[in-house]
């Protein structure tokens, strides 16, 4: 039973990550492969503040989100000025740098050994200690992230982002400060990614650099694309499908050494298949009113 709860917690967790990346990829048309890097900022901030400074999980998570927002803004101002492929390469580079910092700054991050013993979240004396309670928390946070993303999508702000995606030149000629809009949505998306990272740290109670490597970033991107670009519910459905589907492999008695690569083969193939046959994803973006 705990196993089912755990899988659903993971699905909610990835729903947060996918919903936040969808703001960039789906709504604004910015393909980023650095999302796990921002997730790492939230996770490490939470892990360090709770284990070393004895901070409350939620306070630590908020600090992590703020830190991720700050880093995102610093990264965004130069890189979002350039368009298209340059930006993808910049995000690719940033992802590599984050991992390299986590590995090579052992005084802070404990290097490749990671951080263990991260306490489970608790709020006003109520501990989210068991899996069912963690699931409630994860679903609530996923709902919150989804609500924020949905509010952005239906707001005038979201309309400008869609305009930037469809025709950046036209948006600019209407007097919209395109770079500023991109920076703002990037900061929000990355802060939400850090929230996902914080939850990840609280749920697994152990983090290390490989948990946030480029494969994680690609996986989150695959959820967004398969779920449906620009559709909040699509990202949630995508997370559910891509987390639950590989779990079924466990029932096929696949040796554990190839279970992980096989899972990745699966979403690699799915990514290609969707681009070829169903590029809009499982749930397509609803037309703006």
């Amino acid at each position, binding site marked *: 039973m705990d196993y089912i709860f755990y899988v659903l917690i993971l699905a909610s967790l990835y729903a947060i990550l996918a919903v936040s990346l969808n703001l960039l990829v789906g709504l604004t048309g910015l393909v980023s492969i650095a999302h796990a890097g921002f997730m790492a900022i939230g996770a490490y901030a939470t892990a360090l503040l709770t284990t070393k400074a004895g901070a409350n999980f939620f306070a630590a998570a908020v600090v992590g989100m703020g830190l991720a927002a700050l880093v995102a803004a610093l990264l965004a101002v130069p890189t979002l000025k350039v368009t298209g492929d340059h930006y993808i*390469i910049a995000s*690719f*580079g940033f992802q590599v740098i984050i991992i390299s910092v986590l590995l*090579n700054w052992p005084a802070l991050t404990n290097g490749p050994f990671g951080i263990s013993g991260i306490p489970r979240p608790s709020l006003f004396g109520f501990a989210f200690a068991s899996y069912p309670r963690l699931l409630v928390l994860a679903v609530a946070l996923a709902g919150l992230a989804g609500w924020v993303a949905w509010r952005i999508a239906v707001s005038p702000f979201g309309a400008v982002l869609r305009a930037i995606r469809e025709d950046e030149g036209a948006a600019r000629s209407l007097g919209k400060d395109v770079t500023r809009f991109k920076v703002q949505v990037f900061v929000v998306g990355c802060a939400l990614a850090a929230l996902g990272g914080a939850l990840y740290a609280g749920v697994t109670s152990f983090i290390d650099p490989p948990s946030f490597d480029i494969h994680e970033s690609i996986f989150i991107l695959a959820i967004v694309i398969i779920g449906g670009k620009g559709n909040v519910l699509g990202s949630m459905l995508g997370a559910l499908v891509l987390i639950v589907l590989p779990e079924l492999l466990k029932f096929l008695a696949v040796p554990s050494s190839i279970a992980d690569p096989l899972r990745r083969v699966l979403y690699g193939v799915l990514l290609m298949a969707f681009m070829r046959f169903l590029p809009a994803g499982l749930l397509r973006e609803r037309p703006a009113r």
Partner: protein
Amino acid sequence: MGELLQLTVNGLIAGSAYALLALGFWVVYGTTRTFHFAHGGVYTLGGYVFYHTLVALGAPFVVAVAATLLVTALLGMAIERFVYRPLRAIGASDMETLLSSLGLYVLIENLVIIVWKSDPRLVPVAEPLQQGLPFGPVWITGLQLVGLVASLGLWGGLALFLRRSRVGKAIRALAADPEMTEIVGINEDRIRLVVYAVGSLLAGCSVVLSAIDTGIAPSSGMSALLIATISVIVGGTNAVSGGVAGGFLIGVVENVGIWKIASEWKQAIAFGVLAAFILLRPTGLLGPRQAK
């Protein structure tokens, strides 16, 4: 002073390897504007084919190299024919093509892990090649010399091919104006096949040189791709020499950087160079002065 000179030479040698990587990526990216992520997968698979034929099957070196180049070229062509061409036919956007390429990369890397496991493999090299030879105040190993000569040779060869041969001219035409190319009666699909064959062949050459130097791991392709893309952006996407210039620059800056900064930060240094170029000169070293 001697130390700095040695580091600069090391940088030029590393840079020549980066230049070769950039060359292979540029052939595809510069002419078709496809962000060919799966190029990294071609590189990785090539490395394992080389390792497998040379070490596991015990084939002679020349045979292993030939097998590697054959497999990479064919794989590149197959990707163009069976992945990118159908996507073009349905009018997929650049982003959709890129995501498909990313999926393909993940597929190849993980198939490699399933077949060969994820631990790195070393390729034994003849002893004399590993020994340093003194060139005045600096030392260069035979292996490094081979890499340097091969990179420069392939660069020259590619430039000549693009400039002189009929197919090479058609490739440049495709890079400059795809629609016009079709109008003057050049079969675009066929030229693209050549482009992917040549680009993947160069990836094969890169991975052979890198495998005999440092071995091969499933993640090698991703690192190679990162260096190649950074070099191409830093050097400029519009000319064959852009990526080469970028590769040499990154190599030298990284290695001279180690003089003051610990070597784990090499990738961070490369990224710093990239960030500086994106900020100050987005069209690259050899690009036009003004962005469009």
